[in-house]
């Protein structure tokens, strides 16, 4: 975020505070429900996997994956895989559809799904 224009101050009557008009430029991003985002997996556990898309942390539960993708605890590191082209482990790039979001000050979380066409692992 940067500012490029700060106006002259105008003192507010009665309080001594001043009012400025500031122009600024900022990168903003807001995830929407139903949006597909690309994210990087950072943690995998039996219930699902966590992925990160910029500031957004996503969780994709095992329920929201295609049937054939199963958790494999014996792999190192543990992974979700369909024993074919799809291997989800930390570091994998995935395309995820957001199905729910929640925000708090400074933080965003979302629930994602890879159950659907063109979702899941991104082949590099």
């Amino acid at each position, binding site marked *: 975020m940067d500012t490029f224009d700060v106006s002259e101050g105008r003192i507010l009557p009665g309080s001594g505070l001043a009012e400025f008009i500031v122009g600024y430029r900022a990168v903003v991003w807001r995830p929407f*429900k139903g949006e597909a985002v690309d994210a990087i997996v950072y*943690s*995998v*556990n*039996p*219930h*699902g996997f*966590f992925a990160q898309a910029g500031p957004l*942390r996503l*969780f*994709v*539960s095992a*329920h*929201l994956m295609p049937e054939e993708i199963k958790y494999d*605890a*014996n792999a*190192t*590191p*543990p992974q979700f895989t369909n024993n074919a082209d799809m291997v989800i482990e*930390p570091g994998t790039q995935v395309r995820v559809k*957001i*199905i*729910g*979001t*929640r925000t708090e000050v400074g933080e965003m*979380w*979302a*629930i994602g799904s890879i159950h659907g066409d063109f979702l899941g692992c991104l082949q590099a």
Partner: protein
Amino acid sequence: MTKTISLGHRLRYPITIVKIIKSPGDEIKKQDPLMQYSFKWMETVGDHIRGDTWQEERVTIADWDSPVDGEIRQWRIKEGEVITADCPCLVVQETCSHEIQFQGLCAICGKDMTEVNWASESRDTERAPINMTHDQTSLTVSEVQAQRAEQELQRRLLRQRKLSLVVDLDQTIIHACIEPTIGEWQRDPNNPNYESVKEVKSFQLNDDAPRGLASGCWYYIKLRPGLEEFLRKIADKYELHVYTMGTRAYALNIAKLVDPEQKLFGNRVISRDENGSMTAKSLQRLFPVSTDMVVIIDDRADVWPRNRPNLIKVVPYDFFKGIGDINSSFLPKREDFLAPPPAAALPAPTNNGQPQSKNDTGVATDDKAEKPSALEELVNMSGADNPALTQRQIEQQARELEKQIKDRPLLHLQEQIDKEDEEAEKTTPEAVSGGERPSSPPHQRHHLLLDDDRELHFLEKHLTGLHEAYYREYDRAVSTNPSAVPDVGRVLDSLKSRVLRGTKLVLSGLVPIGMDVRKSELGLQVANFGAELRDRVSRDITHLVVSSARPRTQKVRQAAKFSSIKIVTQEWLLESLTQWKRLDETPYLVDIHPADHEPGDIDEDEENLLPPDLEDGQMSPVDALKTFNWGAADEELDEFLASPSDDEDDEDQDGASTDRDTANGDGENGEISRKRKHVDDDDESAASETENADDNSSSLSKKQRLARERPGSSLRAEYHADADTSLPTPQVTGDEGETSVSNGGSRPIEQTVAADMADDDDSLDIDEDELEADLIAEFEAEEREEQEQQQRTEDQQREEG
């Protein structure tokens, strides 16, 4: 998944169902009205200001709103029904049961679970209360989901014939410290410690927390000898989890050192950041439903309050002497401090001259200064504490660290050892590790850091044995019931309890005074390993375990009278517990001081025993004295031991003795009261003393006394000599049977017998018969003098007290 919903307790019962709006099969949404009901209530009407009010009954019809989304399956209520209390009314097929939640979002349907509304009585977030993932705290699951996940895990493990093993890091498989001296030693091949520290691995923790001097400091990690092989072998039989009280960054770094390919631990690492408690670990955190297949190895038993059966306690690995566990500051001080291996347990006083005495008093202060600083730093890194506290800790830690970098406890220790080395070479070059640790080869290189730990070797054997036993049990159970999963805790218990089965132990000097032996760490362990713990020395106990720091206690004296009792050092017990084997006692036998070993000792067998039915201590009248003034009792005991004639006199005066504990109802029992005499209060002894004088006129008792006196008084002399040496550390440890000699009581007596003491000591070594005649005469005189003296002392004490 169907769910039964009840009406809720907030309605004004009794209610009458007026109309059911939605019928089975209908889709319902949260807050949709599902039915209408009516209730009666009293309204106050009239003029409030004038106080002219009366109650009038009203009937109100209200909607009952759906607390969930889903589809109605069945109503349990009918129109027109009168309901007087909360009851289940509706069966609903829920669209989503919100079983997995992530940061307040349902991970299945994506709905926000933190929303609260009037229709539902419980919050949706409560549906998934269990946090069972290693590396996340934000992900929670419901009980059902947890059960499913765990059954899945169990099935997988059973298929692979594995068990889960939860591994602690600090002092169990590694030892960490942040002492900068290590780095210097590592770079200096000429340092005597170079050989030891060259294997030490190190890393820096990069985190943002402002930690002053400590930020970016190096962590030096020593892996326990044989760790790699141990883990490799064990990983075939166990699925390994890391559970540490360090921070996550720390845990991951160590996991990387120990297991660079992540083959062993994978991502199954849990640290205190995810644990939720700074002082306790819980298997339920990882295995919320069933711990039937989980084994723990940890160096501390007290952090696993709920999972003791699954725990294999490991002897702490203490490579960097005196540093301790850098991550356990929040934990209460190790209560079994005497139990861990000799290096840490042997207090300095006994072997001060030996080069290996690590806990020298001079350095101890440094250690203490260093320890908190390391801990402080880790506290700060967590950042979980409240800001004010953290701020304070940061400041304090900056100071501590500066101090540490200046002080360098290990460097000091090494310097000290070098110095002692020189001295020791002049005197006794062999006394290096003599007797301290029979399992380790004697070390001739006199450097601070020894790498002689063999714990993992035994641990591997135990774990392999346990695995075999478990699957033997499993195979047997499965043949009858295919879904049976035996409990590894029980298997472990049965294995352990074989180790010391049939032994009856008495501990001496190992459990702090005032602590219940059976509840102490050591006591629990001993009981766990199948030994029977007794409070008192008696004929049928098998072992007396003695602290090597204080090998001459009252119990030793008692036990020395029975050849069947093996008097062993604590190392025997510790090694046996480590190796899960009842070791041969011979190398551990305590040298009984000749004075304790007198064959013709005053009150030989029976007299000093409790009646058999009271021996176990549970019922012992001595227990009633737990709150007794032990200081006074000890003095009394001194005097009792010092005057051998007391004993026979006791017999005479038993009936007359005024028992203060008649509440116990065993005052008549001669044996008990004689026993209690050892610890009874001053008055009685005074009485006995006066009676003594009378008794002395009886010629029979005189003869008896003459026969007994010589050994008796040499015991006394020895006793005082001993008492004198034990004075500097009277409060160290010991249980109630012991004689902690207090200053005031013994001094005057010592003065009177001081003259004789030298003679007595010598007489033990020279031919005893020769001196006997002389001594008898001498003691006769001295006896009287002493009794008078005692009388005076007691009077004096009573005045003081």
